[in-house]
C-alpha cells in the first residue's frame, strides 16, 4: 500500500479507518502499512483520540415535554388565518439587508461613475482615432509631394493617384 501521506488522501484514509468504514482488506492493508510508517501511526492515533473524545459526548434523551409543546405549536399554527400561515414563517431580519443595501449602493455608485467613462475612452476608440490620424498624415504627405513635383523638385512618384483617394 502506498503511504496515504504521499498520495494526498491521508485524511480520507484516516477517517475511514477510525470510523470503521474500511473493508476488512483495506483495514488489513492499512494496518500493515502503519507497522512500518511512524507518520501514519501518529496520525491514526490522533484521529482515534478525536473519535473516542467525540464518543464521550453523550446526551440524555429528549424531554417528555417536547411532543406536547410541538403539538401545541401545530394546533396554534392551525388556528392562524390562512394569510398568516402562508407568510408567518418568514422572519424578516434586517441584518441580512445591510450587506445587500451596501452592495446595491456600491453598484449604483459604480454605474454612475462609469457612465462618463463610456463617453470618454472605451478601449476601441483610441485605436480608431489613431488610424484616422495616420490616414490624414499620409494624405498631407502626398499633397506635399505633389506640390514638390509641380515645383520640379525631384520627388519619388506617388504610390497612389492623388484624386479621389
Amino acid at each position, binding site marked *: 500500500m502506498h503511504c496515504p501521506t504521499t498520495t494526498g488522501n491521508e*485524511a*480520507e484514509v*484516516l*477517517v475511514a479507518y477510525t*470510523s470503521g468504514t474500511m473493508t476488512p482488506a483495506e483495514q488489513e492493508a492499512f494496518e500493515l502499512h502503519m507497522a512500518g510508517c511512524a507518520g501514519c501511526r501518529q*496520525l491514526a*492515533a*490522533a*484521529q*482515534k*483520540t*478525536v*473519535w*473516542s*473524545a*467525540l464518543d*464521550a*459526548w*453523550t*446526551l*440524555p*434523551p*429528549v*424531554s417528555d415535554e*417536547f*411532543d406536547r*409543546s*410541538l403539538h401545541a*405549536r*401545530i394546533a396554534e*399554527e392551525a388556528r392562524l388565518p390562512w394569510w398568516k*400561515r402562508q407568510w408567518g*414563517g418568514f422572519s424578516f*431580519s434586517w*441584518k441580512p439587508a445591510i450587506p445587500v443595501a451596501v452592495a446595491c449602493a456600491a453598484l449604483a455608485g459604480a454605474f454612475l461613475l462609469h457612465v462618463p467613462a463610456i463617453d470618454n475612452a472605451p478601449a476601441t476608440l483610441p485605436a480608431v482615432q489613431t488610424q484616422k490620424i495616420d490616414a490624414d498624415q499620409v494624405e498631407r504627405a502626398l499633397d506635399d509631394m505633389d506640390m514638390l513635383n509641380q515645383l520640379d523638385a525631384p520627388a519619388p512618384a506617388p504610390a497612389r493617384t492623388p484624386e479621389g483617394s
Partner: protein
Amino acid sequence: MTALASLERDAELMLRVREGDETSFALLLNRHRGPVMHFLYRMVQNQGVAEELAQEVFLRVYKARASYEPTAKFTTWLFRIATHLALNWLRDGKAEKAQDSIDDNSGDGPTRELPDRSGTIEQKLVYEARLGEIRSAIEALPGKQRAAVLMHKYEEMEYVQIAGVLGCSESAVKSLLFRAYETLRARLAHLG
C-alpha cells in the same frame, strides 16, 4: 430493520402524512426526534434553543406535508431544515448570549449532558474537564464544518448525503470534514 428499509419507510410514512395520517407523523417524530434534537444541541450548545429549533424543524415538516415529494431521502430533507435553522441561529449571534448561560448555568436552556453517576469526585471533574474541551473544540469550528462533523460522526451519514444536506458537492464535503478533523486533532490529541 435494515437501513434501506428504514429510509423507504420514512418516505412511505411521510406520504401518508401528506394524505392526512397523523399517526404516521407521530411515528416519524418518534424515530427522528432524538437525532434531530441531539444534532441541534451539539450545533448550538444550548438545551432550550436546541429544543425550540427541533420543534421548528418538525413544525416545518408538518406544514410542508401537502407538497411533500420523495425526491430525496427524508433524513436529508430533515437535516437540511435543521442545519439551516442552526446556521441561521449561529449567524444571528445568539450563540454569544447563550454561551453566558452555559458558563454560569443560569438562564433558559441549561445544559443537560448525561451525568456521570459512577466514579469518584475526581473522576467526575476529569470527565467534566474533558467534556468542556470537546465542546469548545466543536464550538470553535465554523458552522458548516461543525454540521458536517456532527452528521458524519453521530448520524453516520455518508459524504453524498451530507452534501445533499449542505447543498454542496461531495468533494466540498470531504474538504470541510477533513479540515475539521485536522483542527480537532490539533485541539484534542492531548486527551489520548
